[in-house]
């Protein structure tokens, strides 16, 4: 599974901006680089759940997971039951 590519697809959908395709790298900060704001975050987290078959504990999810794509991928892998 190409996590970055799938997260990028989700990002394009949430931001309704196809031009973001191919923009996500391991260093990407979703807040500062792509303007994910407090209104987008719920959709983004719910999208991650659907895409990667995980259940996020919203009250324990660390904001810093959104400041690095690598960190977010690590979070998803740690919580995923799907084979990579």
């Amino acid at each position, binding site marked *: 599974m190409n996590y970055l590519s799938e997260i990028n697809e989700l990002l394009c959908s949430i931001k309704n901006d196809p031009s973001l395709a191919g923009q996500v790298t391991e260093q990407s900060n979703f807040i500062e680089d792509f303007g994910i704001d407090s209104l987008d975050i719920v959709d983004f987290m719910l999208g991650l759940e659907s895409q990667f078959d995980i259940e996020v504990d919203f009250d*324990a999810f660390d904001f810093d997971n959104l400041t690095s794509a690598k960190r977010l991928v690590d979070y998803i892998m740690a919580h995923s039951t799907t084979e990579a």
Partner: protein
Amino acid sequence: MPPRVYWAHFDPEACWHDCNSLSLPAPLGAKSALHLALLDDMFVPADAQDLSLTIVPKCQALHDYHVSIGGNYHTQSVFESVEAWVSEDMPSWPEIFASIQSDAGTPYLEVRDTLSSCAQIPYAYLAQAPVSHFQSPPRLDAIRYANSKSTITQLCQQLEIPCVGKVIEHQDEITQLLKLDCPYVLKEAFGVSGKGAYLVKEQRIAERLVRHFQKQSAQGKQGGVIAQPWLDIEIDFSSQWEISACGEITFIGLCRVENKAFRFNGIDLCCQSLSEAVSHSNYYEQIQLLLSELFKVGYFGSVCVDSALLKNGTVYPVIEVNARESMGSIALRWQNKLSIGNSIRLRQYDVTYQAPVNFESILHKLALQGALFCHGKLGGIIPIAAASFGLPQQNNLVKGRWVHLECGSQTSESYRAILQSCLSDVGVSLL
């Protein structure tokens, strides 16, 4: 009459929120954007002898410009510079007030003395603020009552004022969210534009959120969430009111609110057709009834009532109540301050920049383009906030917010295009 001091904190709902209430999903550690603390410079005093108390010094070039078009007032700041504020870890007003209440408050004695020796005009009441010798604020429970979307919905329903919504108070009511027709809007009791509200588009999402709330409920949290139907809105508008300490209710003004997907975009003060539609309903009677009830529970001060004109032509009187000042009241204050006629719009845009920006050069460029309002001109832009352009360089681009008034016949789009060009020249990107 005592001197008056104006101060503004733009995230009071976070102070009023009950941490034992249910809350929508939000990551831990998410903080308010840095620049929001510095927008307090747009809360303008009414009279020339009044004082604007801001966290960092008011931009001298912007203040001089305001004075040149009739906007006189005194200024004072908590910190002597943005750098001094940053070196103290960028405290917001609640943190400054907490420090004043503790032994660590010594650096803020001058602020405490100013606030206690003047009559205060706050953007919103904060419980920790030093009390003025001349007035007492409402009790915190009355402030919370007047601002809670849950209590306001229940109060409107008691008063038979149209305000449809399902208040979730107890654990066994959470599953009722599954019975509501999608789409609907879930709001926290103290949610605001931009956060604390979420559009539930489909049943699958409702089921997921119910699981989230049930988990919070099992941990002892309850209440504080309200579901409102998705309204077919033609025009969002708000009305501004003042409840005096003796209960007198004064209508301040009406304004059209430009929203886009829960995001606040701006205010239009010229809304003749809207005013006519509203005056043909019993809107004003309904709101005065509601406000008189808020006074009975102990609230007085500024109130902004968010309302809507629906596509079927009916006026929907209460979407929510913000018992504080608002962007609408700020626009009205500037309109009165500068005597610039009725056709006023307020617009705000997020910006990014690499290094602190010389605001005087922005004013100069706008003037060269003929877009800066000045006496003798029929229209133009009046910038009203500058402090968020002075944040120091960080690892990434710095975020700020541009806020201006527009008057005259040019459209907001044409003013935005001119602004974009001027800001680009000084290294600022308009988002």
